């Protein structure tokens, strides 16, 4: 199993090695998932610890272990399967690019990082692989490093996620300080030792890391720019896997959010913060997606928004669970938790599908701008159908997968509202987001595939190596919803992590017809609006910018609420002021010291110079002169006559032999006496 996990680190060469390695890890992961499923079906739980090595020995050694429980088995399968599909797709998409070995090395390292993250058994190990992913993300966004925008976007992604990572690191240090261990299952029973403040602080710090990685407000700014990388990278890292690591981390931090120790008050504030940030970001990102013209950026905003749904689900679920636990009720509902992870699962498939379809479109028309597309449905039949499936799933239309998971998250939010009224507001936000989601998904689809072609290229369908993964993913966009529902709800697959599996849990899916109908209804409304604006043009798009107020809203959304500009300005101001201060210090203090040292140096240099010329140089010159003379004399003995050399050898040999015999004779005389 360890070999299987290490196997995908073989980076060199073309993509075939990478594809082969990832296929092997898919097989391993599928086997693991099957095992876990078999043992953990219906209320059971399974934990497999693979003892690694002791990494930092000491009083409390830090070990590198593999932890395989329900949650990580699901993530392993999901990640490796998607990696496989995207690698295969890359064979076609990256066919004409330069530096393919670099690309495959980086994506392979990335998938190793992601798989390591989800199978880590302690926070430090998780952080290490987390950072590996951050590095690969940086490298891959900047894949076209000669493009200044790509290099800038890579830097931005790295720096913005760094803010979150620092919080994450602080969180880890606090955990270490409090518990003396970083392993999940050793921490879980001990959370009672924390003061209420720390219990609130730690999950918030961890959530800070998740916010950075999953591009939630206010650290969302990097993800849209990250679309400068190759589309496969966007699909792999910025839709399907890496950004999910934040959700995964928050799911892991349930050991703090919902303490398993009885009598410990759950950190309500932390839970609410998570839910509110999720709900807010969902709407916030969706509004920005509505006005964007770059096909990939629309998808990027949509990713942010969908990730926010997951956080909302986790927050609401944690609130319900925490309430039930603290009231000591006999059964604990895990609906929010499983709904969020269910959405993660579905979103990974349909968003990867949409990104890869977008990649196929870009491959055909060589532009990201949707204003230069249109009418591509005729030229790209497979791609357009695949994209339609993805858009339906994203919009949450029955029976596509998004319908089930999104509906479940919203239902959980309503359920949580019984415990805390804030969740009513969050439900409203979520419902509005669902409307906007459907609208922008179909705005994108109609602009790309319907109407008249507005570009200048000659589009053509992509090769089979690219369309095959699309078809598979399109199948999953339907099946992943029905599949899990057929198994009596995703909740019963119990993907909550091990410490909580001890509790009396029920995972009945929340499926209330009224709520489902509401979310379905707003989605249909959104699609209808998109249809009437962009397909039939019954409502002219200009009407949205007709009045100054509306134009202002459009401008605000196009500029992403000026948040990026604010960050830039803020960064520039602060850094510039700091630079000015440093400059002053430099000129007046450091330069003064340097100048004084310089003057002293000049005086001593003059003295040294005299000494150098007279004595050192004299000695050197004399030596070299003598060398020249000696060599001239020696040169006379080199006659060039081979036979005189032979004579010298013979005489020399004779002398040596004579000496050897003479000395041994002499010694024998001495010894004999």
């Amino acid at each position, binding site marked *: 199993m360890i070999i299987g996990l290490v196997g995908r680190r073989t980076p060199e060469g073309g993509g075939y090695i990478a594809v082969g390695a990832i296929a092997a890890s898919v097989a391993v992961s599928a086997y693991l998932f099957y095992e876990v499923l078999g043992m953990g079906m219906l209320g059971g739980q399974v934990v497999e610890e693979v003892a690694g090595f002791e990494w930092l020995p000491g009083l409390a050694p830090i070990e590198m272990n593999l932890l395989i429980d329900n949650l990580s088995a699901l993530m392993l399968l999901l990640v490796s399967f998607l990696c496989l599909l995207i690698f295969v797709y890359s064979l076609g998409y990256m066919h004409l690019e330069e530096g393919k070995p670099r690309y495959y090395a980086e994506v392979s390292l990335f998938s190793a990082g992601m798989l390591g993250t989800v199978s880590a058994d302690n926070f430090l190990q998780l952080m290490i692989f987390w950072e590996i992913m951050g590095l690969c993300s940086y490298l891959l966004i900047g894949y076209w490093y000669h493009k200044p925008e790509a290099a800038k976007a890579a830097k931005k992604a790295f720096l913005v996620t760094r803010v979150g990572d620092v919080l994450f690191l602080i969180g880890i240090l606090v955990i270490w300080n409090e518990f003396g261990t970083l392993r999940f299952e050793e921490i879980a029973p001990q959370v009672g030792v924390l003061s209420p403040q720390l219990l609130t602080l730690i999950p918030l710090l961890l959530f800070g890391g998740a916010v950075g990685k999953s591009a939630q407000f206010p650290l969302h700014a990097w993800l849209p720019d990250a679309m400068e990388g190759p589309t496969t990278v966007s699909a792999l890292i910025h839709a399907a896997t890496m950004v999910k690591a934040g959700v995964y981390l928050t799911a892991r931090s349930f050991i703090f959010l919902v303490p398993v120790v009885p009598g410990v008050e759950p950190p309500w504030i932390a839970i609410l913060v998570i839910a509110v940030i999720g709900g807010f970001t969902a709407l916030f990102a969706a509004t920005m997606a509505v006005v964007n013209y770059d096909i990939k950026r629309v998808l990027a905003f949509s990713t942010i928004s969908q990730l926010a749904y997951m956080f909302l689900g986790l927050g609401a679920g944690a609130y319900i669970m925490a309430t039930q636990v603290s009231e000591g009720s006999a059964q604990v509902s895990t609906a929010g938790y499983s709904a969020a992870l269910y959405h993660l699962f579905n979103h990974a498939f349909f968003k990867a599908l949409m990104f890869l379809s977008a990649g196929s479109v870009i491959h055909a028309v060589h532009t990201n701008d949707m204003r230069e597309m249109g009418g591509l449905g005729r030229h790209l039949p497979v791609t357009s159908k695949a994209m339609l499936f993805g858009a339906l799933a994203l919009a949450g239309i029955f029976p596509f997968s998004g319908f089930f998971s999104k509906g479940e998250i919203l239902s959980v939010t309503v359920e949580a509202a019984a415990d805390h009224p804030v969740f009513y507001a969050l439900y409203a936000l979520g419902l509005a987001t669902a409307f906007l989601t459907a609208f922008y998904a179909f705005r994108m689809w109609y602009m790309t595939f319907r109407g008249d072609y507005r570009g200048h290229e000659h589009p053509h369908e992509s090769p089979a190596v690219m369309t095959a993964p699309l078809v598979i993913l399109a199948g999953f966009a339907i099946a992943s919803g029905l599949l899990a529902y057929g198994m009596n709800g995703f909740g019963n697959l119990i993907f909550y992590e091990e410490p909580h599996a001890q509790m009396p849990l029920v995972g009945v899916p929340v499926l209330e017809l009224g709520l489902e109908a509401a979310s379905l209804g707003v989605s249909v409304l959104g699609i209808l609006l998109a249809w009437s604006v962009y397909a039939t043009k019954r409502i002219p798009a200009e009407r949205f910018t007709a009045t100054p107020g509306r134009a202002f809203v459009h401008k605000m959304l196009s500029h992403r609420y000026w948040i990026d500009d604010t960050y830039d300005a803020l960064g520039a101001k602060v850094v510039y002021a700091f630079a000015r201060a440093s400059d002053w210090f430099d000129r007046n203090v450091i330069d003064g010291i340097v100048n004084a040292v310089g003057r002293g140096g000049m005086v001593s240099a003059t003295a040294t110079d005299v000494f150098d010329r007279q004595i050192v140089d004299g000695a050197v010159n004399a030596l070299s002169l003598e060398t020249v003379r000696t060599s001239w004399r020696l*040169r006379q003995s*080199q*006659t*060039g*006559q*081979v*036979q005189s050399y*032979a*004579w010298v050898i*013979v005489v020399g040999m004779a002398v040596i032999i004579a000496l050897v015999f003479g000395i041994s004779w002499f010694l024998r005389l001495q010894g004999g006496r």
Partner: protein
Amino acid sequence: MIPLEYELALSALLFCIGLYGVLARKNGIIVLMSIEIMLNASVLNFIAFSSYTNDASGQVFALLAIAVAAAEAAVGLAVFLTIYQTHGTIELDKVRFLRW
């Protein structure tokens, strides 16, 4: 069975003949041949001691030395051929143009 002394004496004689040729003759080809004689004298030593101690490894070395000698002779002849082509002589006291 020939006594060891005889063989060693023959070998020493051959060696001296070769040494004389190397030191006294002017013609490069003759010098090369003399070197071969010296080499063969040492090979003879190998054989002599091999049969004296009943040890086959001396013969192995002899075969190896013969093989090396063949290669060496080939290289030497090629060198002299080139020298003859470029300078028109193989008189060793005239071949001194590699001197500084």
